[in-house]
């Protein structure tokens, strides 16, 4: 699970994240919405231990460790553009990242994971240089699965994906969440958020101004609520 309590971060005079409280339980998908500059990336940075907050606490997977250490043990991160080693194949990329964790995965197991996420077989041993964005996202998911991540952090994961790939990606995320991981997804994609997330929050000016359970809203309602939240803060 992910627990953020009273998170505050300032850059000079500007408060980028302001007393943010956010909880995501295991098995849940949380969509973090908000305009550019709302503080989503900073929140993610704090969550993963890349940015030191000025105030507040972050707990990942119930671990007493610092966010940085807990993230190493329990978290996986999929950026907007999953950066793979271009000259290594999909299998080699996964193998490499796992070895960095100190684990050796047999090639068969990696291939099984790649098959599970739907990466075409002909791409498994092909250099990542030729992978599409969707294929890279799939490799990112495999790394999260292979790591056994209990926290999955996504940053604009469906940006640039075609609708089919976007749907496929969403299913995989659902699968990961159903496996017990807490997923937080920073996104502008309201449609995917509505389809995928259990809950969503709107971050504006570093504050969480609204939160909804998405099972209660359809896409149109979500959009109206979202825009209404932005207008209220303007």
């Amino acid at each position, binding site marked *: 699970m992910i627990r953020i309590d009273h998170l505050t971060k300032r850059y000079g005079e500007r408060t980028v994240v302001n007393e943010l409280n956010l909880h995501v339980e295991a098995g849940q998908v949380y969509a973090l919405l908000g305009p550019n500059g709302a503080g989503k990336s900073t929140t993610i940075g704090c969550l993963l231990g890349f940015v030191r907050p000025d105030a507040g606490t972050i707990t990942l997977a119930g671990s007493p460790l610092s966010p940085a250490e807990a993230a190493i043990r329990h978290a996986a991160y999929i950026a907007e*553009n999953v950066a793979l*080693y271009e000259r290594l194949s999909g299998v*080699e990329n996964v193998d490499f990242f796992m*070895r960095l*964790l100190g684990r050796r995965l047999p090639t068969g197991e990696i291939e099984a994971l790649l098959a599970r996420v739907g990466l075409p077989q002909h791409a498994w041993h092909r250099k990542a240089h030729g992978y599409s964005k969707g294929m890279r996202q799939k490799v990112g998911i495999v790394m999260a699965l292979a790591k056994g991540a209990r926290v999955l952090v996504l940053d604009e994961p469906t940006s640039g994906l075609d609708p089919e790939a976007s749907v496929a990606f969403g299913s995989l995320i659902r699968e990961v969440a159903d496996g017990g991981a807490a997923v937080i997804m920073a996104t502008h994609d309201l449609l995917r958020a509505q389809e995928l997330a259990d809950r969503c929050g709107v971050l504006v000016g570093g504050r969480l101004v609204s939160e909804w359970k998405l099972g209660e809203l359809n896409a149109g309602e979500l959009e109206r609520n979202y825009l209404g939240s932005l207008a209220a803060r303007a």
Partner: protein
Amino acid sequence: MIRTLALIRFDLRALLRERGTLLLLAAALLLALYGLFEGMRFHRHAQATQHAAAAQEAGARAAANDLAARYFANPDAPEFAGLRYYRTPVDVRGYAFREHVGFASLPALPGAALAIGEADIRPSTVRVRAESMESVRTAAEIEHPARLAGGRYDLMFFVVYLWPLVLLSLCASVLTQDRESLRLRSLLLQGVGSSRILFVQAGARALLATVLLSAVVAAIALATGSVPSDASGLQAIARWAGIVLLYSTFWSAVAAAVCACCASRMSAAFAGFGLWLLFVIVAPAAIDAAARLAAPVPPRERYVQAMRDAIDGVNANRAASLARFYDSHPEWRPARTAPGDVSSSVSRLHRAQELERTMQGVEREFAQAEGARAMLFARLSALSPVTLANAAFAAAAGNDYARHRRFVGEVERHQNALRDWFQDAIQRAALGDERTGCARTCLGGYGFRDFDRVPRFSASAALAQPTGLPQRAWLLLGWAGAFGVLALAALARERHRQQRG
């Protein structure tokens, strides 16, 4: 350990799959082998010169023996009708001042082909004349001066000047590419710190390239005979490879520092080239300029004038100095000839010694100035890793200034012995000639046939012995350490900045 090995293994795998990397390494090896070829050619030419000199010396001695056998058997033979005493070996004066052929050769070390160093301006084979060291001091090989001015393209040139560019190119993407592609966060989340990524990958790339270079050069050098295929040759290769490794360590530390500071590969390439220019061209040029300014050597025109003044002085005081000479060597004093009337060929060596005595002050002044400049340069070279590497390669190959100076010192001792030997021979011959009064060159007078007893130069064992890895080369590790610390500081600063925002 598994993490470190993974960082190395997969990074090298990805690197070697890049066509550009393979082309770069291939081009580097070709350039290195061309340099080795040039060094080998120079070394073989020097060896050929030494052999030719030895053959000429032996041939001249054999010819002199043969001529002496024929002449002293029948001096009145028609073939000897036009013989002039000053142009023939059978007269000790002619032999000492013209016909004597004696060379001194600096033995080549096993690794000589690996670095030409200063061997092109300080010849390894010099003719030694009884009269003075002038022929040794002004010895020069016939070369197009542009070859000397531009410097040789040899293996040392490649390693010192071009190899760093190869290393910097290979390492410019370490960490910077991860930053550019935003892959760094994913790597950090695997529990691998940026400093480990940086030093392990930069180190592995540089080490792989260095091992490849060393192995290929070693194999070709041994196969072509550039370096002897025996224990001494292998030791020479090992010394050379050791210096290459130290030098590569320095430049990989520079690359690491650059990659730690720069956000992108482009910035790293830019900064790397700038540092290369600074270390390879600017720093050595600055050291040279500083040494020239702070420790000037007097102009040689002053030396020439001092020598001319000394010659004038010696000639003006000839009679008096000869009298002093015969006072200290009464066994050579002529019975019937006044010192002032002694022939110039008999007093010639004495005059040469008088000239040297008169020039001692000037010689010392020049030697001290050169020594001061050499010392200053050696001290300042600690500030220039490239200069350190240059000096180390030249010293390991035995083609450095210091070794040549030791050689000249041994030649000087030999030349003194040679002069003393001929002085004794000429003075006794003069006494004999006074007694016998031969109309022509004859035994008992100036006749001479002791060619085999004339001292010959032999280099000391110490001169033929290679030294170990030059001490000052280890300073390169200090420089590498400094840049390593700089890299760590840059990474810490980056982490702090990211944390604080």
